[in-house]
Each structure stands twice: as C-alpha cells, then as structure tokens.
C-alpha cells in the first residue's frame, strides 16, 4: 500500500477536540481497524489535542496541527502546537502529574496516549512548542 497522509489545522478551541478525534478515526477507517483500535486512537488523539489547547496555548489563540500517516499497517499521528512548550518532558509524562490549577485534570494524558498507542514520542522546546508522535500497528 502507498503512503497516505491527512493534514489538519485546527484553532485552539476545546470544541475542536471532538472534531479532531473523529476526523482521525474517519481517515484510519480505510485500514479496516477494529472498533477497539478506533477507540484507542480516538482516545489518544483527544489527549494530545487537549494537551495542546490547555497547556500549549493555555486558552490563548493558536493553531493545532495534526498529521496522520498510513503506511502499510502502521498508523502515525503527529499532534503539534506552537505554544509554551514543556520545560521537563519526563516530569510531564509521569502519571498523575499536572500543572493544572483547577484540580479537575487527572494528569493522565500522556499515560493514556502510552496505554492506547504502541509508541509515543514527545519533542518540546519552551517557547517554541510541542510535538507528540504516536504510532500504532492496526490489524495485528
């Protein structure tokens, strides 16, 4: 199979979280995934996009970039923002760690991405932005 790519640019608005995960689910449906695989990817995408909106842009304006690539049985989802960046990625990825002051966030965003995808890589530079790359084999 050839490599196919979907690119989306979204404004950093919480109402776009649903659109993002549904769009990725629609695109990956051509891989003939199971419902469970679709749910896994939707959850991981929702986590990454929500992080971009809450932490990357902190409620301010900005663009979230999503790039989804299908290559054979491998799905790659890249979620990027040009927001504040993460000073300590290792700490940010610890389960239950959150900088959110409302107390309503579980701090499990990265744990969820890791639980529902095969591979998660985070690149981030303070003041430049954050890029999360997630991979999953579909139809093992």
């Amino acid at each position, binding site marked *: 199979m050839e490599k196919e790519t979907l690119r989306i640019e979204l404004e950093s608005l*919480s*109402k776009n*979280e*649903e659109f993002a*995960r549904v769009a990725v689910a629609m695109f990956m449906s051509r891989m003939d995934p199971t*419902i*469970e695989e679709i*749910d896994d990817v*939707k*959850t991981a995408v*929702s*986590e990454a996009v*929500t992080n971009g*909106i*809450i932490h990357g842009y902190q409620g301010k304006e900005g663009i979230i970039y999503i790039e989804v690539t299908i290559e054979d049985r491998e799905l790659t989802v890249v979620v990027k923002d040009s927001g504040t960046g993460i000073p300590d990625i290792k700490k940010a990825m610890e389960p239950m760690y959150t900088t959110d002051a*409302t*107390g*309503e*966030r*579980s*701090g*499990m*965003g990265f*744990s*969820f991405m890791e*639980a*529902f995808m095969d591979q998660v890589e985070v690149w981030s530079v303070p003041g430049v932005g954050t890029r999360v790359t997630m991979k999953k084999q579909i139809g093992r």
Partner: protein
Amino acid sequence: MEEQTFRYEAKGQVLVIHMPKELDHHNCRNLRYETDLLLEENYITKIVFDFSKTVFMDSSGIGILLNRYKQMERSGGKTAIYGARAQILRVLAVGGIGKLVPQYDSKEAAIAG
C-alpha cells in the same frame, strides 16, 4: 448559546448525573461548578454516574470522576457508575477508577448498591 451537557436528577439523598455522549475536556467544563452547587444546596450521600448515553470518554472524565469520588469520600458518601460500555470500561480501568467506584448494570442497582 451553551448546550447543557450534564443532566442532574435528585432521588432523595442520591444525585444521579447523566453523562454526555462525548465526555471530553470540552464537555467537562461546567461539571464542577454545577455539582458543587447541587451538593451545597442538597443533602447528598451518594452520586450515581449514568454512562448509558456515553460513547466516548478520555482522561478528562477520569479527572472529574476522581474528584467527585474524593469529595464524597470526605463527607462519608458513596459513588457508583452504571451503563458503561466497552470503551468506557477500558478507560475507567486504565484510569484506575475501576477499583475505586463500583459499576452496575442498571440505575436501580447503582442506587441500591
């Protein structure tokens, strides 16, 4: 225009919260304020979460469940869940809620349990 995402139902000392179809950060925004208000105004000893209409949940749902669980624990109250389908059950398990909040098949069982 703001669409109401959570519906609340008081049954004696039990507060039933009907969860929205898509339980994400966007749809969780008002829950804390709304439940805090209801808990202040009513004597509630148990919160029952209805997931029967929910088809999607991410870690935002875990955050609000965990906080309501802690809130009820502090006041000696209980929490329960009913109607959760496969995706929701997996997310609850990964989020560690599976062990904290008992899950039931029906509203009646959740209220009684």
